[in-house]
């Protein structure tokens, strides 16, 4: 039996980060991974989808941007096998990097399945057999998996989750996406660029409902429509029938049953935490009805030596939240007084254009009791760099409190995912609009839109025409 101070279960962006931090802090640490190091994020999630999105983006540029710029190329050909292989090479590089980091920090890696025996013991089952690990502390980073809906069980060949969609062997002709959330939209957008005819069935009235700023998702919806992606709202997928190589999908729309045909069905209706693994019960930890492990603000479960991080412990299911928790929990185990203590967890959606947000939506700010909000947008169309990149769709929207303290930033547009970090820092630092407006942003860059949006929210941006928000009081006249 091997003994450890900490055993981390799961090596996604929560688990591997936690393990490295534990090891850095001098704890004897092990990590257990049943599939590939790096988890969903590096292998079948964030990273491979970004590779495919990048490939599709350049293809789209070649086809639709180059002619206007005066570059003539013959019609591009897609070697899809090579594209997928390249995507895989990206993942392998990242996963290999994780492996090196873990080894370099002297984390003991177990490739196998974890069976929980007690709050201090885990049995690892691998090709080498079974082994019991004894540990003082446990960090559960079991992650999540795509939700399956009845009638559309995944075979990951034709009826696919994001995992299967990222690993197709050919570009399908027609694809139906069930669920217009961020994963569905990201994959649908790039598939359309690669040439697939895409229909999205969405149960709600709008895309990214409740997730993104409505103004932002509207820009994406418009561009999707322009690119030829069909979105059917208020549609509920019911059944599918396979005839030959073709699927007929039945969905309910306004009380009526409608059908449509496709070669592939992508189901992206959300993800569920992996809190339903049977042996977890042996730990004595509390798990709620949705499968989330119940934790406190330190991510500690009711068993005080067991922590849960990442998708397993609650929304939002985002890799960067998991990593932050991983570092935090390692420090807590080491005795540092910490809790999950951030003002905002930013979110990014790699649609075309990208959406990124930090802080509160207008509705959230109002619900928290802020009054007389200051809200304004600055469009990318008024930014020199955006115009020169042919990426003028979108804007930066800022929401500030009455005293000009920045509450929320919502960006839709080019490089929104990279621009948002400035907003995160500003919100965490408690910045006011003036702090952003008075910081010199280099020209010509997309980043200037942050400065200009702050100016716009204060009522006096330079590069858009604004009605003055407040008329200056007239100068007092002398009284005789």
């Amino acid at each position, binding site marked *: 039996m091997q003994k450890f*101070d900490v055993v981390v279960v799961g090596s996604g962006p929560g688990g591997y980060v936690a393990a490295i931090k534990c090891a850095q802090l001098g*704890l004897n640490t092990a990590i257990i991974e049943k599939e590939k190091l790096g988890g969903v994020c590096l292998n079948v999630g964030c990273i491979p989808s970004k590779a495919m999105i990048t490939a599709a983006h350049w293809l789209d540029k070649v086809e639709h941007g180059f002619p206007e710029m005066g570059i003539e190329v013959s019609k591009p050909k897609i070697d899809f096998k090579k594209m997928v292989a390249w995507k895989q090479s990206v993942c392998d590089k990242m996963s290999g990097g994780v492996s090196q980091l873990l080894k370099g920090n002297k984390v003991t890696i177990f490739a196998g399945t974890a069976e929980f025996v*007690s*709050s*201090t013991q885990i049995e690892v089952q691998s090709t080498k057999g079974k082994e019991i690990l004894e540990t*003082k*502390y446990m960090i559960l980073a079991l992650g999540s998996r795509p939700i399956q809906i009845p009638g559309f069980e995944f075979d990951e060949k034709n009826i696919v989750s994001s995992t299967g969609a990222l690993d197709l062997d050919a570009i399908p002709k027609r694809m139906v996406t069930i669920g217009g959330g961020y994963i569905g939209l990201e994959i649908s957008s790039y598939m359309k660029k690669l040439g697939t005819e895409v229909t999205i069935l969405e149960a709600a009235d709008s895309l990214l409902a409740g997730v993104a700023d409505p103004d932002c998702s509207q820009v994406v919806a418009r561009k999707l429509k322009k690119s030829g992606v069909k979105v059917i709202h208020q549609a509920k997928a019911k059944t599918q029938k396979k005839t030959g190589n073709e699927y007929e999908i039945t969905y309910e729309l306004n009380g009526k049953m409608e059908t449509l045909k496709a070669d592939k069905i992508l189901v992206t209706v959300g993800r569920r935490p992996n809190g339903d693994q049977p042996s977890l*019960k*042996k*730990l*004595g*930890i*509390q798990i709620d009805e949705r499968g989330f492990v*119940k*934790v*406190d*603000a*330190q991510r*500690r*479960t*009711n*068993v*005080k*030596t067991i922590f849960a991080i990442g998708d397993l412990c609650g929304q939002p299911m985002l890799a960067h939240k998991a990593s932050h928790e991983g570092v935090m929990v390692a420090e*807590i*185990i*080491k*005795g*540092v*007084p*910490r*809790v*999950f*203590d*951030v*003002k*905002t967890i930013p979110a990014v959606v790699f649609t075309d254009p990208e959406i990124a947000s930090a802080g509160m939506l207008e509705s959230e700010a109002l619900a*928290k009791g802020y009054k007389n909000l200051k809200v304004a947008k600055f469009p990318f169309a008024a930014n020199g760099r955006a115009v020169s990149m042919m990426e003028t769709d979108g804007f930066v929207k800022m929401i500030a409190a009455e*005293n*000009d*303290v920045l509450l929320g930033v919502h960006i839709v547009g080019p490089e929104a995912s990279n621009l948002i970090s400035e907003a995160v820092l500003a919100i*965490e*630092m*408690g910045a*006011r609009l003036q702090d952003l407006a008075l910081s010199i942003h280099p020209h010509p860059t997309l980043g200037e839109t942050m400065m200009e949006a702050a100016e716009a929210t204060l009522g006096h941006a330079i590069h858009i025409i604004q009605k003055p928000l407040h008329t200056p009081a007239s100068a007092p006249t002398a009284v005789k």
Partner: protein
Amino acid sequence: MAFDLKLPELGEGVTEGELIKWLVKPGDTVKADQSVAEIMTDKATVEVPTTRSGVIKELKFKAGEVIKVESTILTLEESGGAIKSTTPTAPAAKPAAAPPTNGHAFNPPTTTVSANGAAGGTFELKLPELGEGVTEGELIKWLVKPGDTVKPDQSIAEIMTDKATVEVPTSKGGTVKELKFKAGDVVKVESVLLTLSTDGGSTAVKTAPASQATTAPQKVHASQPERSMAAAASTTAATSTTFYPPVMDSKVLATPSTRRLAREMQIDINGVSGTGLAGRVTREDILKQLDSVSISARGPATSTTNGSISFPKPGYSSNMANAEERVALKGIRKKIAENMQMAKHIIPHFTLMDEVDVTELVAFRESMKDVAEKAGTKITYLPLVMKALIATIREFPQFNASIDDQAQEIVYKKYFNLGFAADTPNGLVVPVIKGADQKSVLDLSKEILDLSKRARDNKLKIDEMKGATITITNIGSVGGTYATPIINHPEVAILGMYKIQDRLELTTEGKVISKKYMNFTITADHRLIDGAVAARFLKSFLGRIQKPALLMLDMH
């Protein structure tokens, strides 16, 4: 061989001291353990000894300079041995162990499995945690009675805390065997509320640590982080999971690094008023809290720290600056200032005054003079008053106590360490006689004389000024009829004794006789001690003073 003598640690939290004077000069030959300098710190003036013998080569500081701990203060030429610079052990106090942090030391708690979990046995349902800082609740009513069959998650009782009334569910099903409390009882978190006989089903029961009593109560407070519930087995002491709520739900403005600093200092940033732009809590705002925290942290060993006191620091300026002299507030004076401010801030003081006929006491003391002289000491009134005080606080234990504000507990002390205020050229110093109840009047006299002398000479050890359980101030030896002293926090009372005065009295027979009277005051912490209790205390105490023979009754 040259040897660098470094300033040793001078006590807990003491990082520097002022050089009062050198006791040696270059060229002097010193022996190991010989004192070489007098250093004044916040707490006391101490003599620093050298650890090596040799001839002093160089003194590195001048009197009046402030020296950091670990700085080289002098070099000496040793007669032999290797070059080595060592830090002598502290002359006054051993460096104290690092104060415990709120963190979780890297030693996992023992999560023992409660034996109650055995299949088909008896299950004890404990009162789970009811919310942050809530340690008990009043049982409003039972929702079940013995013999009832209950299902898991069924509410079994209504408990009222000072935050809300909550229904407490059971985590297991079974038949109610016994209710351990009555409606109206105050139940501590983790107490067994009721017992159930569970009906078999070993799988459910075996679930292991903590799950037994982990019944989630109704949400007490919406923004409250979900905290680990009760956890029947785990030892809460080792893994205190109390922490201040995250800032995500509050409107507090502070940078991430400031928030982290606050957490490391165990300060709830949500409760700190920010002085920065738009109400930002700045790093300085947090550090200011530290100042007030450290007052108590550096206080007597029994002191309890309270994290959130910040005193205003008004400046002073006038147009008479030319006719004014400014002197740094430091050393013992600074310490006195901090302690007094702290005590006055925390304790609601009240003082009761009375006079007593001490004619017999005076005679009693006179009669002992010779005995004392033979024993090589002299007896003052103080040791006699101490004996009367100890006898009285045995009768009224709340006078020998402290309030732990943080834990919301009263600490009754079963030992008697008497502090007595001593007037010294440097200011007020309170030496402490440890275990005063175990010492004879003669022993007390000797110790009082010794401590007083060394207090005047600035030679007290830090330990000798710590740990009093109650204090006596004898301002009467200087003058004054009555005073209203300040309690030496975390003590809860201070006894004042004043001048003895002659008084003529008319007896019932019409004769004029001479009597001796003395005034006493008892100042008490009104949080713990009611006025009537203090009055009874003073009466009982004065009874002993008036008839010193009564002290015989307390002998054992």
